[in-house]
């Protein structure tokens, strides 16, 4: 990845973050914290990694993505809108009673959403089913799913992990957004799941620990996933991220798990993101010249 490409991804991720703020502010509720920690990996997926076509959201040969941590719908919607699946201008209608942008992803109303999710622990199983279906068809479709580190408290996740390994789903990339916080506090205090790397190794995964807010590290991780095809091992990314990444007052603040910015907070967040956007544009211009 060239420096220019990295800068362009950063620019897109900044716009995805603006979308998260627009959507949650428009809704007056929702989940900005985990949406912001996941904005970079979603940007990488939709702008660099996945084989998708916004003009053909139902193409049977597309790669699939399941947002198992469905409450981070604002980030998924923002990435999809930015990628051209539907208008960015619709984002603030999130959670409104006449909007197709449901509070949690709905595959039947939102173009580009491959599975309805929201109840934690369930999306990862559906992703396993998609990966198994792709294997059964002999197709080269990849399936990606993003979980929260709080989400893996759900026993069903571990059922799915065993299944992925048992059926040798090396076309499946399970990504855990390890931002260290869940609703009631730090994950280590609420329900400690560490050492996650050793657990995933023991469950038979090709386990990759990386900074989930670094495009250089994400690129390496996705390369490792590509290399694992044919190994018979599913891949697991442990994405070390910062909850609220990109908005100063939301970073590492547990209260921003599930509340929307008010007008004043919205202005402050957008100001920061616009400044970041502007400086990235300048940097891109310099690198172009």
């Amino acid at each position, binding site marked *: 990845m060239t420096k220019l490409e990295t800068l362009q991804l950063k620019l897109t991720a900044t716009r995805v973050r603006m979308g998260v703020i627009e959507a949650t502010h428009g809704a007056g509720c929702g989940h900005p914290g985990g949406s912001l920690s996941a904005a970079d990996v979603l940007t990488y997926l939709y702008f660099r990694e996945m084989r998708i076509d916004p003009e053909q959201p139902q193409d*049977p040969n597309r790669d*699939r993505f*399941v947002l198992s941590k469905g409450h981070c719908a604002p980030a998924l919607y923002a990435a999809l809108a930015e990628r051209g699946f539907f208008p960015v201008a619709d984002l603030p209608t999130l959670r409104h009673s006449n909007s197709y942008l449901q509070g949690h992803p*709905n*595959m*039947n109303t939102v173009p580009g959403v*491959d*599975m*309805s*999710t*929201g*109840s934690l*622990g*369930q*999306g*990862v*199983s*559906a*992703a*396993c*089913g*998609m*990966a*198994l*279906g*792709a294997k*059964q*068809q002999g197709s080269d479709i990849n399936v990606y799913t993003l979980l929260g580190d709080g989400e893996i408290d759900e*026993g*069903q996740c571990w*059922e*799915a992990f*065993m*299944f992925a390994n*048992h*059926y040798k789903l090396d076309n499946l990339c399970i990504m855990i957004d390890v931002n260290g916080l869940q609703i009631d506090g730090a994950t280590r205090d609420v329900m400690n799941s560490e050492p996650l790397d050793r657990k995933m190794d023991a469950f038979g995964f090709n386990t990759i620990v990386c900074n989930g807010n670094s495009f250089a590290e994400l690129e390496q991780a996705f390369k490792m996933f590509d290399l694992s095809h044919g190994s018979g091992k599913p891949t697991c990314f442990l994405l070390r991220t910062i909850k609220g990444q990109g908005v100063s007052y939301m970073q590492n603040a547990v209260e921003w798990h599930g509340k929307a910015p008010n007008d004043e907070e919205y202005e402050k967040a957008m100001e920061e993101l616009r400044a970041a956007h502007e400086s990235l544009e300048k940097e891109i211009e310099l690198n172009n010249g």
Partner: protein
Amino acid sequence: MAEMKKIATRVSYGNTLVELARQGADNLVVFDADLAAATKTEIFRKEYPDRHFDCGIAEQNMIGVAAGMSTMGYVPFVSSFAMFAAGRAFEQIRNTIGYPHLNVKIAATHAGLSVGEDGASHQCCEDIALMRTIPGMVILSPADDVEARAAVIAAYNYNGPVYLRFSRLPSPVFHDPETYEFQIGKGEKLTDGYDIAVISTGLMTSEALRAAVLAKRQGISVRVINMPTIKPLDEEIILTAARECRRIITVEEHNVLGGLGEAVCGVLSEKLPCYVRRLGVQDQFGHSGPANEVLRDYGLSAEAIAAAVREIVRPDHNTDDSANQ
């Protein structure tokens, strides 16, 4: 009544999966949760091992996997005991199959008290109630081998979520495979009668038929209506029965709360109020014992149905007619 051939509907299920695959249902896949020998999906596994996936004892994941597989163009049948399918994995069925309205068939065997010896922990009398409350869920509860086979084929051909309720206990085969026609959402009038209607489902339909014979000896004509589809419910056949028979008994191997009886009452209370007696499990847990004994203990037998018929049609004649039978 002459001795009829008996087959458990779970066996009909396993056999029909193979039949469908043989007839070219290439997109049919089967999931089980370490119960293939009991749910009879092993019949399918034997012939199509590469289309049968054991999920281990993990029903919640199995439901999600099937949902994902359905989005890839497959028609998954997932199997477990009713207790662990509808019960343990209720929320998975609700959110990952029901809400997105995915084309997954949930084939639950060992429903009701007739599980027998395993006892209350395995005797699921709540599954109809649970499945009825999921919008868009079709519920099929076949009464014998012929109907079960037809129900599996209909479920396969229907695009959307279906819950199929099968039994462990072999039951008499009373339908004629040559003439029987099954349609989702249609009830079936098995006997003509005008004194009272008995509406039953699953294993209870053959008991209702025997009850009608017992009642006939006492000059009471019973209309037996078999209800293989619990949802969507055949309202027309219920309203006609209410108009023509004026009194109704419902019989089900299920808690009377939330089951067929309440579904029938729901229709009648709004459209044509009439007397309904709900026979079933009276909000109790089951217990261990041979299936037929347990059913008898809970009043789910032809004799108990006939007694209820007599009590309702001839309230003034409280004589014990058993000596005449």
